[in-house]
């Protein structure tokens, strides 16, 4: 197992309580920041760390912080994006549920750096029981003097609240999240202005993912330069990977950036290999939105180099033969998986979750779902396959927010790498009648 910067103490009994968390060295970053550093020095450390947004986009966190309008006379806000909804992603829930004080600590240190006096954690409504765990942790932090007025005897004051969403994937998009936090429908805003200038209540706002904010804790404790020594190149630090699908050991794993994908899938320290003694067919490496890759391309790049768990290595080959690290939602499929049916569930997801604001997405996601439904159920035509590619192309890049792209990429990549499987569904409709058609065929052939 590599270095653990976030989950090192996750197995300590009682780590969800303030007392145990503190005993294990918790809240040291708050003490260090508030007592020995200026807010700008904290931001500087985050810049030096090379930390990139862990929600999916991978934008440098320190740069995002530096965009915050510090000259405005309006209050500044830090909002934590805990609206984890990207299919295949469950790392933030794990972190908040098991070690809630890590997020609370990260929120305090980060709010100090940004000059926020009120901060919110926007958590998806389905995580209602996690919200209660966080609220308990926050109450404990208030009682211990780490939240509220004059924290640790300094001038710094901060109030922290948890706010539930109510079942809308789109609210993971930062401007939709802010709309939702203002009590409105989750329709993404046109940018600019960016939230750093006009975010929550039109005030300067930073929105960061749970894992990003948690990573500020080791960055401040170790120093940004030390943090940057972990990992490879521009992929610094550790990453939480949510591993799901046809593997022996699904779960959340903290990996050092740079771990070979092959080791991650087959090592007993991580996924423990493919279940039921089957072979690997495909992987969606960074949540449902990123391009799917067949086994040979997820293990090795098109150039034949081992694929690593980094932003750069997973993207090697662009969208022709590569993918993205995304949110770290690592979905593994064995040889019996029907790529068309899996894709149909994703298309249904995006259709359901489109906010309806932009017509290419509102209409296009519905068309893709319908066409995939008929191909999967043996009613498709050969021309439907190119029709899907055409619809995906016309959504991509033509919407206010990235949900349109997120819906288009899985379709385009599945057809790019598994076109023969789509053709098979059209040619042999009677062979795909059973929803488990490929599993059935494997069992018959054995």
């Amino acid at each position, binding site marked *: 197992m590599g270095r653990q910067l976030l989950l090192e103490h996750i197995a300590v009994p009682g780590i969800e309580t303030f007392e145990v968390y503190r005993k294990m060295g918790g809240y040291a970053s708050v003490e260090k920041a508030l007592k020995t550093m200026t807010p700008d020095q904290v931001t500087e450390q985050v810049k030096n760390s090379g930390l990139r947004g862990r929600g999916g986009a991978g934008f440098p966190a320190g740069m995002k912080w530096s965009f915050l309008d510090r000259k405005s006379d309006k209050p500044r806000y830090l909002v934590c994006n805990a609206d984890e909804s990207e299919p295949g992603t469950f790392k933030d*829930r794990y972190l908040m549920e098991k070690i809630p004080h890590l997020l609370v600590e990260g929120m305090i240190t980060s709010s100090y750096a940004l000059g926020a006096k009120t901060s919110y954690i926007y958590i998806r409504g389905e995580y209602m029981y996690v919200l209660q765990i966080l609220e308990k942790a926050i109450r404990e932090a208030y009682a211990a003097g780490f939240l509220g007025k004059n924290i640790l005897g300094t001038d710094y004051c901060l109030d922290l609240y948890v706010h539930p969403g109510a079942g*809308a994937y789109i609210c993971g998009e930062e401007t939709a999240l802010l709309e939702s936090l203002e009590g409105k*429908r989750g329709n993404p805003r046109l940018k600019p202005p960016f939230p750093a200038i006009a975010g929550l209540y039109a005030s300067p706002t930073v929105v960061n993912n749970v894992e990003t904010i948690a990573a500020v804790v080791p960055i401040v404790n170790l120093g940004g330069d030390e943090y940057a020594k972990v990992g490879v190149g521009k992929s610094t630090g550790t990453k939480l990977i949510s*591993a799901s699908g046809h593997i022996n050991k699904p779960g959340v794993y903290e990996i050092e950036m740079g771990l070979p994908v092959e080791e991650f899938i087959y090592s007993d320290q991580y996924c423990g290999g493919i279940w039921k003694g089957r072979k690997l067919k495909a992987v969606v490496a960074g949540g449902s939105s990123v391009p799917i890759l067949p086994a040979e391309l997820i293990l090795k790049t098109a150039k034949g180099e081992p694929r690593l768990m980094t932003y750069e290595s997973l993207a090697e080959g662009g969208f022709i033969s590569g993918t993205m690290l995304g949110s770290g939602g690592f979905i593994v499929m064995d040889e019996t998986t029907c790529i068309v049916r899996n894709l149909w569930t994703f298309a249904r*997801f995006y259709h*359901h979750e489109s906010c309806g604001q932009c017509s290419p997405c509102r209409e296009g996601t519905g068309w893709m779902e319908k066409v995939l439904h008929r191909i999967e159920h043996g009613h498709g035509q050969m021309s439907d396959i190119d029709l899907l590619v055409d619809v995906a192309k016309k959504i991509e890049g033509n919407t206010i927010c990235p949900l349109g792209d997120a819906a288009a990429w899985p379709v385009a990549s599945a057809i790019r790498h598994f076109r023969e499987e789509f053709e098979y569904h059209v040619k042999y409709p009677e062979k795909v009648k059973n929803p488990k058609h490929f599993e059935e065929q494997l069992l018959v052939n054995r």
Partner: protein
Amino acid sequence: MATEKETIQFSDSALSKAKEIIGRYPEGKQKSALLPLLHLAQSEFDGWLSPAVMDYVASLLQIKPIEVYEVATFYTMFNLEPVGNHLLEVCRTGPCWLRGAEDIVKRIEQKLNIKVGETTADGKFTLKTVECLGSCGTAPMLQCGATFFENLSEESVEMLIEKLAKQKRSSYLRPTEINVG
């Protein structure tokens, strides 16, 4: 329905909770409390939001009823029609599908003799399918009120239904203590 409206009123504890929630947001930004208050209202009033309940929430926040309706219809967690005592929401997205979510749905349909979207005649159960609940590593799974039931098998989901049938309405705010292994 003026007479019905008069009967819509939070309990004292819910009302003080609502006031506490409203206080989390800056002066004049009380509309921010809308989603938390709708969760609270749904929990208080039998698991769904009637127009009268939504009007009541609007009055608490001093906003127009339309501002509540447009929000309540946007978010899937708000039920705009009555639901059974136990709303079974089975995740059907990719990762859960890979681990057998379709078999779970089928087994529940057989057990309860209803289809997805329907409520049993005795009003105890409603079955829905939902999109990814962030529980992909413990798939297949379903949510009932505030509780996640994970690593389900066809057998364990039957057992869950039998246990839930003996209980009162599932809470939307507090997880229940039912273990189905």
